[in-house]
């Protein structure tokens, strides 16, 4: 069982994602939270047991794309699974996220099935 980090500036959305992860029976031992990319990066550096990240894109302090780019510069996090969960559903933003190293992309609003599909194969 692995740890997961959820990064979103909305406490509501973090709670929704946590419930959906439980509903989808995603096997995680612990779920950590962060309110923006900067906080998420700090959490990630402090806890080497985080095995996957779900991140919003539009956030204050540090957005999800900049968070993703920062993660991918770290040698020990190059292959860390990061899935973006965001309202930004346009092709350009999806491409930007994938080019920046995202492993998956879920558009809000979402169903539990879309989360499960996005995480399939990314978490053991």
């Amino acid at each position: 069982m692995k740890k997961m980090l959820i990064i979103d500036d909305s406490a509501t959305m973090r709670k929704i994602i946590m419930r959906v992860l439980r509903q989808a029976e995603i096997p995680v031992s612990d779920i950590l939270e962060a309110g923006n990319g900067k906080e998420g990066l700090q959490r990630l550096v402090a806890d080497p047991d985080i095995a996957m990240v779900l991140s919003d894109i539009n956030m204050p302090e540090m957005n999800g794309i900049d968070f993703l780019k920062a993660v991918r510069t770290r040698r020990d996090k190059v292959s860390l699974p990061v899935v973006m969960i965001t309202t930004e559903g346009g092709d350009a933003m999806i491409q930007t996220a994938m080019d920046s190293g995202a492993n998956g992309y879920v558009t809000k609003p979402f169903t539990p099935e879309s989360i499960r599909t996005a995480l399939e194969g990314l978490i053991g």
Partner: protein
Amino acid sequence: MAESAPGSAGPDASALDAGLRESLEGIFTTMLAREVSPPDASAGDRAAAAARWFVARIELHGDRDGVVSLRCDPGAARALAIALLMMDEADTLADEEVLDAVGECANMLAGGLKTRVFDPLGYWIIGTPACAVEAALPDSKAHHAVDCGLGGGLLTVDLSWAAETRTAAVH
């Protein structure tokens, strides 16, 4: 993020009205497991008497500047939060939690509108929600609006352009 050329003249009124409604319907059916329905006959009176409104606004910038707003009277705001958070009717919710839920709903609404209507036209950006409990429903100069009933209360979403006087509404 990648920059690109400014957007075109902007979408037409019918596309905006449809986009606003479709974005709201997407949230209701996917996250709330219900349909968007008109407010009941007495919702307007209750709304007019409401001392507080839960309001979330998101700025939209492109070829024009605008604001997407979501306004809920207390009944609709609480019902929205309960449904989004999959809680029970009897559960207690602080104003802060209700306001955050309204903000997240506005976030999904603005994002859905941007994806459906604005992204195909060029480069547009949306901000993060600015949320507040306000004393009264402000006179809306919205150019595109949808009213719906939720939890016996009133929820309104609208898009207003800066420095524009033309109005259009969908109910």
